């Protein structure tokens, strides 16, 4: 059975009718006990499992997923990867992730198609240009790459945008991050799954955690639709359903669930080769390698677990797209969907102890956790293996809602969340 992907193997399998490939991961029956149980087979859960083995030598690990791998937000997002945040704590986190993404395809022997095509975040007035300069300075001081562009430079990078002085929001310039880009979201989940499986991690799909087992106030395992599974430490990375799991286990979270929508157009010839985001229109888009425009925007306005989204935001995002790039007005949409994201009061993630001993959380990534998968996995693995924070995860502990040291990144995201 062919195990690794290489030019030679691709050629050989091409000549043999692609019959020699083995499954990318096993489908084992759950064992009775594991050293670490991870609930949620999205990008964060799978990456955590991988780094548990690779960085900490913890080999007896299970990932438990109620549906299929990456069927949550990891397979539903608009694939933007960037580290253009404002606070040092955030840059440390998201830039670690961008750096790990830069070597990920090679490390996992799986093409995650990280394409560093850069990202333009436009500014639409002179005061906005001043804020953009402040943002660029903050990013540079924190060690991320950033440039302030004038309108001519933006025109060169993304000529499809609306540069008319009569536009509702005329473009004055932009914040540019050249190392930002897009990745193939399913491939990130699959790449981590395959690599973790090869290191001995049991990935158990179609297995829902229905209860959390505690003994003497300590979490000792989970009840699932495939029976009880015990674990030394349990980690929950169940974006969108974080509060549902919290209720089962008896801890609380400062999280509200909202639908976030995305759109893909019919494929077309190349019209843009960067990620473009115009904050006042509430719309961003990029073009996938297949040619479809991948379009996203802000959160729905009504808290929801209904995975479909609603009309007002569709209108805002698509109306915004047409004002942002009028040439796209007649482009037809191919697909539209929504994911349920867990939003925190400061738009920053929550990583750390849940409040129930032995149970840890990785959640609250809201609209922006795809870019953070390699870092989230690294940090969560550190916590699950050692029981203590990594320096980079410490500021994201849930205790910040008690101490008041919030990391309010609502503005850096630029999108309502």
């Amino acid at each position, binding site marked *: 059975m062919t195990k690794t992907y290489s030019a030679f193997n691709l050629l050989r399998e091409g000549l043999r009718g692609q019959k020699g490939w083995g499954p990318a991961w096993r489908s084992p029956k759950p064992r009775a006990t594991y050293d670490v149980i991870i609930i949620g087979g999205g990008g964060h859960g799978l990456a955590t499992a991988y780094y548990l083995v690779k960085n900490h030598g913890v080999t007896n690990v299970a990932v438990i997923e109620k549906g299929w791998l990456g069927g949550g937000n990891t397979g539903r997002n608009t694939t933007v990867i960037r580290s253009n945040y404002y606070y040092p704590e955030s840059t440390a986190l998201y830039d670690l992730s961008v750096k790990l993404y830069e070597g990920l395809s090679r490390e996992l022997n799986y093409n995650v198609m990280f394409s560093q095509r850069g990202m333009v975040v436009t500014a639409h007035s002179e005061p906005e240009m001043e804020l953009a300069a402040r943002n660029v300075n903050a990013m540079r001081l924190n060690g991320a790459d950033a440039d302030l562009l004038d309108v001519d430079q933006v025109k060169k990078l993304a000529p499809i945008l609306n540069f008319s002085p009569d536009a509702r929001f005329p473009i004055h310039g932009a914040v540019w991050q050249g190392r930002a880009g897009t990745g193939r979201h399913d491939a990130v989940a699959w790449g981590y799954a395959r690599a973790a499986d090869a290191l001995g991690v049991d990935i158990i799909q179609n297995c829902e955690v229905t209860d959390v087992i505690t003994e003497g106030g300590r979490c000792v395992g989970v009840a699932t639709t495939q029976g009880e599974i015990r674990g030394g430490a349990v980690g929950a990375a169940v974006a969108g359903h974080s509060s549902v799991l919290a209720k089962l286990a008896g801890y*609380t979270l400062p999280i509200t669930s909202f639908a976030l929508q995305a759109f893909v157009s019919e494929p077309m010839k190349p019209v843009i080769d960067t990620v473009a985001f115009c904050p006042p229109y509430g719309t961003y888009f990029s073009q996938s390698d297949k040619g479809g425009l991948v379009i996203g925007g802000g959160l729905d306005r*009504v808290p929801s677990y209904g995975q479909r989204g609603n009309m007002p935001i569709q209108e805002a995002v698509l109306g915004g797209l047409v004002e942002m790039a009028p040439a796209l007005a007649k482009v037809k949409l191919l697909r539209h969907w929504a994911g349920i994201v867990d939003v925190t009061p400061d738009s920053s993630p929550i990583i750390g102890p849940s409040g129930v001993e032995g149970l840890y959380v990785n959640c609250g990534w809201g609209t922006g956790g795809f870019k953070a998968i390699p870092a989230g996995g690294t940090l969560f693995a550190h916590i699950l293996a050692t029981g203590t924070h990594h320096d980079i995860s410490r500021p994201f502990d849930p205790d910040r809602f008690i101490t008041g040291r919030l990391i309010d990144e609502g503005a850096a995201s630029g999108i309502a969340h």
Partner: protein
Amino acid sequence: MQLFPCPFCGDRDEREFHFAGEAGKVRPDTAGSEAEVSAKDWSEYLYTQRNDHGHVREIWMHLPCQEVFLLERHSVTMAVIGATSFRDVGTKEASA
């Protein structure tokens, strides 16, 4: 476009409404000089959310008429179960 019921104006476009928060939270009592509220209690009041999967009770405002009311919904199906003016429920019942 979903219609939400304003107890004062009747069914209106959802875009006219503002979600103000979950119902049932009680602000810690800060009256009097002895009233010492712990950071944990403040945090719970300010940030902790029930975020229920299913039947929810929420405070909404209908912006055009400024009516503040209790909206009961289903957070998965998005069905509206009922709307009650705070004038009718009274603060006590609304925070139950």
